[in-house]
């Protein structure tokens, strides 16, 4: 039974209010919209902290499962605080995931009814041939900084130390290279090898 009118134009807090107002019935539309919005953000949080795309996808699914259950139960008193609510669960779940890989299966069993709705979409996959052409248009130094940064998830201080560059210079090179790469990928300005 659909109790409220929510959709892509609703703000997050309105969606939360709709879910709370529907209880004990379920507002599937509002739940789905909340999950659609939050899944990629929680996955990013997970990628940043777990450095593994599968683990990040697991995190997003687990956090959304718990979030929807808690919203249904009216445990979020102030709908405007959805972000903090979700982040808090994300931080705790990252800690749990690091400690206990079995948590995932337990949660999926417990909340199987909403598992499908909260499965995050796959992350964007770029055109690799085009990206390679764009990378070859960078200077050797810039390409080295990007490869060392993203392959090893290393910060500017460590990358700079390995390449004989200062931390600040590495940050500048990294920043400019990414802007050039992004422009190349979006505007098709790749140069020749």
């Amino acid at each position, binding site marked *: 039974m659909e109790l409220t009118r929510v959709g892509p134009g609703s703000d997050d807090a309105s969606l939360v209010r709709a879910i709370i107002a529907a209880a004990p019935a379920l507002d599937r539309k509002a739940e789905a919209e909340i999950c659609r919005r939050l899944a990629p953000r929680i996955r990013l949080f997970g990628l940043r902290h777990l450095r593994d795309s599968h683990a990040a996808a697991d995190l997003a699914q687990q956090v959304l499962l718990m979030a929807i259950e808690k919203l249904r139960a009216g445990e979020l008193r102030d709908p405007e605080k959805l*972000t903090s609510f979700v982040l808090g669960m994300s931080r705790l779940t990252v800690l749990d995931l690091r400690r206990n890989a079995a948590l995932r299966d337990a949660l999926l069993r417990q909340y199987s009814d909403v598992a499908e709705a909260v499965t995050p979409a796959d992350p964007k996959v770029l055109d690799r041939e085009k990206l390679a052409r764009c990378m070859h248009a960078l200077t*050797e*130094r810039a390409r080295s900084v990007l490869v060392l940064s993203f392959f090893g998830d290393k910060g500017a201080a460590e990358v700079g130390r390995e*390449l004989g560059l200062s931390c600040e210079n590495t940050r500048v090179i990294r*920043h400019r290279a990414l802007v050039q*790469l992004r422009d190349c*990928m979006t505007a098709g300005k790749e140069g020749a090898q």
Partner: protein
Amino acid sequence: MTSSCREPLSLGTLLAYWFGELDAEAERQVEEHFVGCAYCSETLEALAALGLGIRAVFETGLVSAILSPAFVERMKERGMKLREYPVAPGGTVNCTITAQDDAVISRLKAPLAGRTRIDVLRLDREGNVRLRYTDVPFDPAAGEVLVCPSASVLKAAPAFRDTMRLLAIDVDGEHVLGDYIFDHTPS
């Protein structure tokens, strides 16, 4: 892309966040912002996608790069199969790459202490400059420049000779540190 954000996080901030360069409080603020902001989370997602793409094109040998010795060790730790060719100045090496190899590392040995700029030239059989890598990154203490050519290009290449030349650049001009000859045969 979602329409806008009144105070969008800068690319510099997002990069610093992504690489763990912010202090705990700044990191918390960034997370509070992007988890609640469609625009900034999409910007961060695009950055993450670019990072994953960079990693993928390197792992699949689609790009060449100058690397550090520590980085080459990390490649090995990740299980990448490397074929390494250390070469002294004036040296020649027979080299190849097999379908099972992930990368080839040309280790160009040279005295680099005190050098501030190094260029790498790629010469054809006639000694003409085919490519010039300007101002390549290097660790003066390492005593070598590590060139990782595109594995996908090498795997498709017929037999060829590739000469690399290291040039040191300083106020007096260019100084040849050495020529390094690679005789490649396909596997």
